[in-house]
């Protein structure tokens, strides 16, 4: 309980590590730091610092035992300077990085080329393939660069095969890039240093990481041991996370008997137990029902806010991105062509909604509707319109009054459409989708 009280207070710490010798990112030489603790620091004892370290998953950072003597600032300064040098570099790096204001993820010109075997069609092609193979180079990701600050929640958008997952895999060290560089928390991901692995998590929505034939609790327990989470912390975190995700009573159910949503929540808990500083989520809500999607989404938002965990998320659901990410990076065919605030994308490219009117059978045909919006489909049974957001309600009102409507559906434009529109907005592209706020016309009967 006491730990719980200390953790939030420690977020606005007033002590800093000042690098003396060398840079932080990818440092192989042990960097030396001096510790300046200000008088008004909330950290008044070694124990408190230890708690802070624990809350931030700073393994191996052990202040000296025994009570502190003298004013806190001086005593911290005293032990820190000579003895921190002997602490594991990783602990110091972690502390210093959390204090440093540089970006937590830096990606520079990252490229990943896959070599695929091109088989000629038919049996002859198969036989020929035995002797001579033609390979094709496809760039899954091409020259992408971006930076992410600590605590940011960034959404990765793009159609299937755009390179989102490849990017996340490279950032978590599962794939080696063909060229370019990346640094996450100061580490090069594909070198897979143990210290890096302790501080991030990757959740692939399409893959199962829990033991299928055992209760989820067992898998969580295993993760607890792998990351060396102290017992009381483990219990507390499992308790909190299962409660927030409403799966407490599912802990002892075999994983194979869980619903998709429950399983995904368990996967999420398993990924968060060690309190990663960076979290990569690949389609965490894929296939979930609306309620589960909403729970996961709300949970992620709260988690990002309270823990300041940096999260990179890919999703097909616009609503996920909309609810969670202030910033979005849009990738298609391996390159980034939009990186910025979500509002900007939505205003520019998803400024319309799709209205579908199912008409009563045998109704009189309706005249031209193009004044209301872009007509996508217009026949005796159905009318589909793309209407600017601001006018959705008024258009609905008018059309519901005037048309023999049986059913009405209002939909957001899908992510894929948004991306297509971004293409359309680019020079040389199709620029027909632009609205000039037409006045509300009278409906003319045919």
């Amino acid at each position, binding site marked *: 309980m006491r730990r719980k009280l200390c953790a939030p207070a420690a977020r606005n710490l007033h002590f800093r590590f000042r690098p003396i010798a060398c840079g932080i990112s990818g440092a192989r030489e042990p960097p030396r730091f001096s510790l300046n603790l200000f008088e008004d620091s909330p950290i008044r004892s070694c124990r408190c610092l230890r708690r802070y370290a624990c809350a931030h998953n700073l393994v191996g950072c052990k202040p000296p035992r025994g009570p502190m003597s003298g004013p806190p600032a001086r005593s911290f300064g005293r032990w820190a300077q000579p003895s921190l040098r002997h602490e594991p570099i990783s602990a110091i790096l972690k502390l210093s990085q959390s204090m440093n204001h540089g970006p937590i993820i830096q990606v520079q010109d990252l490229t990943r080329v896959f070599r695929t075997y091109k088989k000629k069609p038919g049996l002859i092609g198969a036989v020929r393939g035995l002797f001579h193979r033609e390979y094709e180079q496809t760039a899954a990701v091409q020259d992408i660069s971006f930076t992410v600050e600590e605590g940011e929640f960034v959404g990765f958008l793009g159609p299937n095969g755009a390179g989102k997952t490849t990017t996340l895999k490279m950032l978590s060290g599962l794939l080696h890039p063909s060229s370019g560089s990346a640094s996450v928390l100061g580490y090069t991901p594909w070198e897979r240093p143990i210290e890096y692995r302790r501080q991030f998590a990757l959740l692939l929505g399409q*893959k199962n990481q829990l033991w299928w034939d055992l209760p989820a609790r067992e898998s969580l327990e295993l993760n607890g041991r792998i990351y060396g989470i102290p017992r009381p912390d483990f219990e507390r975190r499992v308790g909190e996370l299962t409660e927030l995700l409403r799966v407490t009573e599912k802990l002892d159910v075999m994983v194979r008997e869980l619903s998709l949503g429950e399983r995904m929540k368990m996967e999420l808990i398993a990924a968060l137990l060690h309190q990663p500083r960076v979290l990569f989520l690949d389609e965490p809500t894929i296939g979930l029902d609306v309620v589960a999607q909403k729970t996961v989404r709300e949970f992620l938002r709260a988690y990002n806010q309270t823990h300041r965990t940096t999260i990179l998320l890919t999703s097909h659901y616009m609503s996920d991105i909309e609810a969670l990410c202030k910033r979005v990076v849009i990738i298609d065919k391996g390159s980034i062509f939009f990186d910025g605030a979500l509002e900007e994308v939505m205003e520019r490219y998803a400024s319309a909604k799709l209205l579908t009117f199912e008409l009563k059978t045998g109704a009189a045909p309706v005249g031209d509707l193009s004044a209301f919006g872009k007509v996508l489909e217009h026949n005796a049974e159905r009318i589909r319109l793309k209407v600017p957001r601001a006018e959705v309600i008024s258009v609905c009102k008018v059309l519901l009054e005037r048309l023999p409507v049986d059913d009405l559906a209002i939909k957001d434009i899908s992510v894929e459409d948004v991306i297509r529109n971004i293409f359309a907005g680019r020079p040389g592209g199709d620029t027909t989708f632009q609205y000039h706020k037409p006045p509300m016309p009278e409906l003319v009967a045919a």
Partner: protein
Amino acid sequence: MKTYGHIITMGIQNTLVYRVNFFCRAFFNLIPLFATMALWRAIYAGKPAEVAGYTLAQMLSYYLLVTIVEASTSVTEDDWQIAADIKDGAIGQFLIRPMDYLHYRLCLFFSGRAVYVLAALVPVGVFVLWQREFLVPPVNATALVVFLISLVFSAVLQFFLSYLIAMLAFWVLEISSFTFILLACERLASGQMFPLDILPHWLAQAMMWTPFPYGTFFPVSIYLGKVTGVALAQGFLLQSFWVVALYAAARLVWQRGLRSYTVVGG
């Protein structure tokens, strides 16, 4: 250490699902065993007092012991599972966590063995009791202790061999032909079919330089008192050498495999 303990308990719980499978396998393995024993009885009925230095009781004990050693040390599902992990990308979660795949698999192997021994206990136990007149006791207490130690080595050795073969899944789509080759080598060269002493001396000697006899033949020979003194020390040395060498090879091939996995594939 706590991690590995927990993996073993999880593995045991998980493998208990296969207990009936294991029981059946252990049970039906007894049928060829019974046939082999009957064959040897027929051979000895033609009145040779000894074949290749084995009395009838020793020969029959040999096969009983091979069954016991096999049940407690041989690899059953592990190589397929490892290959599957590589192919479907499940090894990814070991690359992103501070955890070692080889150690993880070794733990699972041990838990698998524990469950197998448990499942095989009844059928094999009953069979051995039934044929107890043919099971000679170990020559002395030391032999028993050395036999048990050697058993652990033999289990680890066989695991590393299978692990190495399973690593081929990084490069080839289907590893089954390779596992069958390994299986054939093991059956012949490890003495599961017959005691290697039956072979011409030079061939038996040559085989002792390969890792295979240290899976089954060597521990059984210790029990029967066929290897003692200098030969025993030499055998142990070779067994340990193979354990270390195969471990190193497993590490190396894993590194290579990962390189192709992360650099080429994905």
